[in-house]
């Protein structure tokens, strides 16, 4: 039938276009907000505490989710639950690589590794047992008291130590937002390029299938 081909063409475009437009709309809807469906766990060391934050990548916090902390050989050191803001903090019991594992509801899981080097020195020392932020300073004061009348050289060394502690604390404070941003960037799995790439892949696969079919049919 001569009439058949234009009719067929028209029918095809009528149904193809709404679908194509739907897909394009969805892409833009998705690309405008960076949304992803996974949980992200982020941990950082501040003073002698380790702080963790966890959230679904659409920004919703993971509340009451289980956090477990393992050492380098896989022994569980401690576990706890995230609070309302998806945060959990703990004092590392020893200086080792920490593997922090978050298990959120419905089979979501993420982990974050803090290398031993990131933990403050003297993990077994006095500083470690003290709770408060800025514990180093307290210990320093205590030590200074003990060593009253010590030679001048030693005092200078202690002073250096104090300066170092203060500088480190300040740096921690200043770098925290930057670190957070970096990790967030790293964890944002979704990008416009990813979405387009995925659709490209799908149509590429379609093309390959159709190519081989058309060769077979000949």
């Amino acid at each position, binding site marked *: 039938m001569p009439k058949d081909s234009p009719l067929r063409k028209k029918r095809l475009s009528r149904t193809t276009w709404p*679908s194509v437009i739907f*897909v394009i709309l969805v892409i833009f809807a*998705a690309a405008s907000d960076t949304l992803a469906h996974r949980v992200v766990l982020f941990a950082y060391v501040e003073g002698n505490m380790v702080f963790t934050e966890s959230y*679904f990548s659409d920004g919703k916090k993971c509340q009451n989710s289980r956090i477990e902390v393992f050492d380098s050989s896989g022994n569980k050191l401690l576990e706890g639950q995230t609070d309302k803001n998806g945060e959990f903090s703990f004092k590392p019991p020893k200086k080792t690589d920490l593997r922090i594992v978050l298990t959120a509801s419905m089979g979501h899981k993420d982990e974050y590794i803090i290398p031993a080097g990131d933990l403050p020195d003297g993990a077994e020392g006095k500083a470690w047992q003290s709770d408060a932020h800025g514990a180093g300073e307290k210990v320093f004061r205590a030590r200074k008291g003990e060593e009253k009348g010590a030679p001048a050289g030693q005092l200078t060394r202690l002073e250096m130590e104090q300066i170092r502690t203060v500088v480190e604390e300040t740096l921690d404070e200043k770098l925290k937002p930057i670190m957070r941003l970096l990790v967030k960037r790293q964890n944002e799995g979704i990008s416009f390029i990813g979405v387009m790439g995925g659709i490209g892949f799908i149509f590429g696969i*379609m093309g390959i299938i159709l190519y081989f079919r058309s060769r077979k049919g000949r």
Partner: protein
Amino acid sequence: MHISEGVLSAPVLVTGAAITAAGCGIGLKKLDYDRVPQVAILTSAFFVASLIHIPIGPSSVHLVLNGLMGLLLGWPAFPAILIALFLQALLFQFGGITTLGVNTFNMAFPAIICFYLFAYGVKGKNNLISMGAAFACGFFGILVGSLMVAISLVFTGDPFIGIAKVVVIAHLPVMIIEGLITLFSAGFLRKLKPELLEVVHAKR
């Protein structure tokens, strides 16, 4: 609905992968190759659907569209969902490569169930029945999917009722929204191109 890596044990992963392989085999066999572009379009719709979050309810949930996939594709929904989930794992780190088999089965099996339960009703002459069947199709796709996720997670040691409650309640808004999406899509196709709704995907 994507189960992350490292949550499930090896036997669950292997079982899921085996069933998915079988499902994909059947799907590819039943695929009418003239329909490949349609399958590709629905695959991309499924691929991007999970980027649309539904900000209702206690947890973080998103669209799935597996009911619609099942309704329009039948068995070829299996390979289609496999490809879409593979790309989501690769590009967005949703789920994971090892859990691909289980995740595909969890989403595609409900799609097939919906196909057998509702495709006949949706393409029927009666408008009201068709609309009802389309809504139920979208609704059940997510409901059964949630239960499948709960079943997979049972083997991690938590009690079934507990997980099922959490997953199903979290997805209640999704069920309703997907029901509506399927209803409108099916209504649209019934008017414009009813032959798409016919069960023609099987090789004649």
